[in-house]
């Protein structure tokens, strides 16, 4: 247990309880050869909050998310999760520790039905071994039914009952995004990472998606980290925002603080040369 100072969290204006620190990024530096994607960044994520990472294109937001989900291993710095320094792990091991994510470009399993896609999200809740599954006997069948019941709850929650058995490849874009969220939620994650959940959506779809993100946070208390370009959405949804530019952190705080931050305004709007 590292020295994460006792921190009981606080209650937001609308009465949501934000807990202590769930994950802390300490001095993360990530290099690809000579390119420095992330330069000495530190920030924390608290239990129950919606944490946004914003920044212009190429700022290193997605790289940051990949560090959290274990796809990239930073050269320097530590990821501290639930109070312990996380050793170098393969992505599937990180997933088993309760971190689920969605992808910028939809990464659903096209050859499978919606139901199977979401059931895949529940992998680590299913423990039957090869032989039990081969015989479809005892644990295998029982687990399948139990997990199906859980998945059905999520299907209800995200209002995708009508496409349950449809192959994913036949779905329109907006629904695919929703199915991807469902798959991530099915894992019952402690931390949910959303990489541009609203990219390429129209206003209505964005509204739906925002609603779902807030509902998920409300209902399950899921800690959510999201990357998004739509500033209106980010400022409305998130509790705290990290702003990145060229791999550096240039701002961190509540939406209001960030909005008035000199550096942030400079990065987004540019400054007039005098």
């Amino acid at each position: 247990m590292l020295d994460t100072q006792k921190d009981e969290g606080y209650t937001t204006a609308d009465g949501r309880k934000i807990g202590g620190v769930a994950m802390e990024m300490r001095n993360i530096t990530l290099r690809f050869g000579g390119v420095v994607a992330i330069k000495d960044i530190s920030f924390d994520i608290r239990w129950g909050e919606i944490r946004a990472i914003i920044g212009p294109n190429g700022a290193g937001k997605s790289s940051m998310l990949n560090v959290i989900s274990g796809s990239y291993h930073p050269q320097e710095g530590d990821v501290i999760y639930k109070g312990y320094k996380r050793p170098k792990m393969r992505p599937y091991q990180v997933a088993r520790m309760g971190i689920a994510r969605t992808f910028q470009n939809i990464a659903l399993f096209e050859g499978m039905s919606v139901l199977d896609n979401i059931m895949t999200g529940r992998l680590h809740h299913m423990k039957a071994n090869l032989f039990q599954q081969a015989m479809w006997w005892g644990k295998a069948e029982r687990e399948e039914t139990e997990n199906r019941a859980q998945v059905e709850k999520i299907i209800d929650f995200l209002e995708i009952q009508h496409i349950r058995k449809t192959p994913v490849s036949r779905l329109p874009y907006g629904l695919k995004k929703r199915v991807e969220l469902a798959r991530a939620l099915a894992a019952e994650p402690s931390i949910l990472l959303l990489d541009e959940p609203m990219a390429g959506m129209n206003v209505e779809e964005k509204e739906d998606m925002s609603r779902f993100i807030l509902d998920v946070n409300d209902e399950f208390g899921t800690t959510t980290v999201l990357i998004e370009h739509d500033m209106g959405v980010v400022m409305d949804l998130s509790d705290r925002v990290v702003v990145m530019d060229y791999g550096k952190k240039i701002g961190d705080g509540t939406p209001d603080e960030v909005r008035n931050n000199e550096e942030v305004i400079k990065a987004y709007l540019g400054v007039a040369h005098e």
Partner: protein
Amino acid sequence: MLYREAGDFKTSYVADNQTFPIRFDRIGYYVILGVAFLVVPLFITDYWANSIVVPFLIYTIAALGLNILIGYCGQLSLGTGAFMAVGAYGSYKLMTAFPELNIIFVIILAGFITAGVGVLFGLPSLRIKGFYLAVATLAAQFFLIWLFTRQGWFYNYSPTGMISAPTREVFGYPVTGPRASAVSMYMICLCFLVATAWLARNLTRGSLGRQWMAIRDMDIAAEIIGVNPLMAKLTAFAVSSFFIGISGALLFTVYLGAAEAGEAFGIDKSFLVLFMVIIGGLGSIFGAFAGAAFLIVGPVMLKLLLVNTLGWPTDMAAHLEIMIIGALIIVFLIAEPHGIAALWRTIKEKLRLWPFPY
């Protein structure tokens, strides 16, 4: 009775998950099983058993195995012939080393041996994929066949280099060797086929099957969701090789009786089974049946039609047969690139709406 699920309410997730959700299919399935087990044995003759039915059953098992690897897990393999040879030589060594061991256990054990060998040759799949993996499995094909033809221990130093199956009995009926009757050969292959098809269905509908398909559809996303790629790929190789080993053991012990690795299990066998899987439909249990039926039963049926019905000379019929089968493959693949199974699925979907498609 119309072909649809309306009125057939599912009240539990178990019922909703069953293999044949439409009542008509369920009944059809039981009818086919009944015919296969009760009616066919009454009429089967040596000619039908040897030319069509037994090879069809055996190759369907191989196609099921390869379909798990290629169709469900997306790992391309060209080593099927060699893995069948492992099953065959494994069963031969077991039969000669333990003469009292029941042939059924011999075949199952041969399957497990093949599973082990398959995992070994599946290790490269962790690093390479697609065509490159196919080339790596090609190495298995050449290496194993070399091993079985050059190393005397595998064929018990027989002077011809062939292995031949001694007579073994199940419930007092000889199923291998020259005294085996058509019915007993048919029954043992059918039992193995039904068992393996059932196992394949169970494995592909559960958590493991979803992990395989996840690896097939998008391996990077699969890993981030929590699929261990090492486990998923190696179990696919193991299960696939297990089935292929069983089919190789059956091919040798029950059907051929005597075999030589280079001839019976050459690369052409790898391609034959691969074509079955592709034509039948990747990622479908039914596809394995359809593909094997197309490539095993099709040529024989054509020959019967051309030679026996139309009275054409045998040699011309043989050439025409190859051309027609080749043309049919192309026609099928153009009409439905995802194989006969996808064609069948489309027909069923249309049938569900018939006669009022709107």
